[in-house]
């Protein structure tokens, strides 16, 4: 495993950063938020990312992708994290898209994956229910056999990118109960299916998330991904991949938050000097910088380990999410504190990182969940 960027990767990182920064990302986010934009992101930006090829990174050429991996994906999400870009790249491409790619039939891919890669359609994946915390065996939906298919009922929460999505991959329990590793299936359900409704939810980070209500929606047998296979296995795998992508986004966010704070420390003057000249603040900034460097290393490593499907890949994913959750929240808290009064105002951008840090922490498992998972995987 090489923890250095190749020429191509370095180029991709630069392009991604230019694309994001050129879009005046934070101003755009505010406009979407304060204008109560129903979608909360821009379809054309997603399409543009598709044109640049980023939506195809982690898919095989056969599926119309570039046959690269998370090592490249995290460079895109890192740039998105720097600008808090709200486009549903992770849920539509890395989460639902990969689920279809790994478990879907030719029809599934043609109907949903190709359009998603083309940036024409948006996919979302529903895997958690209210109070279900991070346990993937607590499927949000129950699937009961009906003639030629299944009937789905239940309520999923905080479905990322789930408002106005074109289709949903839904984790449902066909048999057994919470805690059982068997009996979980993934179904592809198009928006507009009778008995399926999505309601926009509003989170502190103002990203597009939805509550997905299934009230006896009926799907055919052909709607199931990896039919008869290990549904939970497939779900866990794409969640792990999306988790790595998210840690990339978090890395970008904490990098940006720290840089903005350093800038403020250099410019803000009190007592006749820049406050960045106060040693106590210097040392705290240096501590945050250490956290940043450690975070960058583990994100790169986790991405490469999953790409190589190495034995400790899952453990590295947990290290990465645990580390980034703690480090991003720390950096964001300190960033607000070091900005002083203006740091607590809605008008100032630094607060947006605080909110996103916390929402990211609570997505795909927080630090203590991943520490417990790491220990389980390590057999102690």
């Amino acid at each position, binding site marked *: 495993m090489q923890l250095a960027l190749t020429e191509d990767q370095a180029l991709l990182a630069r392009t991604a950063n230019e694309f994001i920064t050129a879009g005046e990302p934070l101003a755009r986010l505010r406009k979407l938020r304060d204008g109560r934009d129903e979608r909360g992101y821009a379809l054309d930006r997603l399409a543009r990312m598709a044109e640049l090829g980023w939506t195809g990174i982690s898919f095989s050429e056969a599926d119309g992708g570039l046959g690269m991996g998370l090592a490249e994906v995290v460079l895109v999400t890192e740039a998105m994290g720097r600008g808090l870009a709200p486009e549903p790249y992770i849920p539509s491409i890395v989460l639902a898209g990969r689920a279809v790619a790994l478990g879907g039939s030719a029809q599934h891919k043609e109907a949903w994956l190709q359009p998603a890669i083309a940036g024409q359609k948006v996919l979302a994946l529903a895997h*958690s229910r*209210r*109070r279900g*915390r*991070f346990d993937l065996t607590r499927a949000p939906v129950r699937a009961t056999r009906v003639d030629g298919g299944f009937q789905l009922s239940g309520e999923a*929460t*905080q479905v990322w990118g789930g408002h106005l999505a074109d289709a949903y991959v839904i984790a449902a329990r066909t048999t057994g109960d919470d805690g059982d590793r068997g009996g979980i299936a993934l179904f592809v359900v198009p928006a507009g299916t009778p008995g399926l409704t999505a*309601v*926009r*939810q*509003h*989170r*502190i*980070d*103002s990203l597009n998330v939805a*509550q997905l209500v299934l009230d006896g929606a009926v799907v055919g047998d052909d709607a199931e991904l990896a039919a008869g296979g290990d549904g939970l296995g497939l779900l866990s795998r794409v969640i792990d991949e999306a988790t790595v992508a998210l840690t990339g986004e978090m890395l970008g966010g904490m990098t940006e938050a720290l840089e903005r704070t350093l800038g403020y420390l250099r410019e803000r*003057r*009190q*007592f*006749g000097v820049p*406050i960045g000249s*106060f040693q*106590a*603040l210097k040392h705290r900034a240096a501590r945050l910088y250490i956290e940043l460097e450690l975070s960058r290393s583990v994100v790169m490593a986790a991405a490469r380990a999953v790409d190589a499907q190495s034995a400790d890949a899952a453990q590295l994913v947990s290290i990465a999410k645990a580390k980034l959750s703690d480090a991003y929240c720390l950096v964001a*808290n300190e960033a*607000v*504190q070091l900005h*002083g*009064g203006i*740091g*607590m*105002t*809605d*008008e100032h951008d630094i*607060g947006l990182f*605080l*909110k996103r840090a*916390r*929402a990211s922490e*609570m*997505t795909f498992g*927080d630090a*203590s969940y991943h*520490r*417990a998972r790491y220990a389980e995987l390590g057999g102690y």
Partner: protein
Amino acid sequence: MTDVESFRAELVEFFERELPGQIGELPPATADYWGGRRPELPHPSSQRYCEVMAERGLTAPTWPREYGGGGLDKECAKIVTAELRRLGLPVPLVGFGMSMIGPTLLQFGTDEQKREHLPKIALGEIRWAQGYSEPNAGSDLASLAASARIAGDEITINGQKIWTSYADKADWMFGIFRTDTGGKKQEGITFLLLDMAQPGVEVRPIKLISGASPFCETFFTDARARTRDIIHGVGNGWTVAKALLGHERTMIGDLFGAGGRGRPATAGNLLVEVARDYIGEREPGGRIGDPVLRDRVTQFTMEERCFALTMQRSADAARAGHKPGPESSIFKIYGTELNQRRHELILALRGPQSVGWEGEGFDPRELAQTRDWLRSRGNTIEGGTSEIQLNIIAKHVLALPD
């Protein structure tokens, strides 16, 4: 029976029999009433309750009678508080008049100034705001620039204040302004009072990351004040300002400290309840399901208790007649940090349910607590940043060199 006992008897008589007769339904203990010309009523009878209490000098029990207080000694005053708590009645009147400018006037004001302003505070007629910080004078308060030009017995004020709590609801402002730009920056600062109901004063609320707007910006354009409202003389404002900041720190410490009005006294148990609710329990009423979070809850509960005990120790020392010890220097910084830690712990316990802003999928308590958490991030900034508090402790308590 002793005077004290008879005083308590009177008080009980009044609270239990007379008061309801005069007011009818009494406000609940949680109903904070701030008074003022445009009072907000947390409860229909809040204002009436305040007035009736004020008639008896019970809004400001320890203030002298001639200034609208109760003229009571510490011991009797404590009885008032105790009886109010016992009967589930609120403190009749809160606000910066009672907690900040009142005590400051008693310390620095002339008899004339006390006679004019204190009774209106005690009666809840005037609500006050604090004009201290400016955009370029935060931690470095002494470098403030808002100017007060004195001509005869008129003062003309220009400039801007920021972080003025509830200025949009206040009637008068106490604040510090620059009357002299030469010499040491602490000199040339004057502490004065002004009526905010005038064209030269414009107030704009500041929206915080929590969505609330407890603070305002206040702009002065040839605003007017009277020389008779200068406290402690021209150029001596810094002394007054620092003394007042002392009152403020203590108030904030009390507010956020364990047992303080800023939070439920039972936070420890509250955390256990939230943990049981969101994490689950081994068996009904048994251990919290997740031992690691259980340990975090315990760790926090212990820290909180240690802080509450420190506040009690300080109070007991005061009661025993010792002057406030150095331990009081930690109240503001530690109380506010505890409040932040409490909120972050609740986020951890509620997990994904703790990141909602509004609407679907989150229950009201979850949403309210999330806002409170966001608001709490400011606690270590407002009223003197934690960094400033640490500087103060290092210099004045630990005698470390500059």
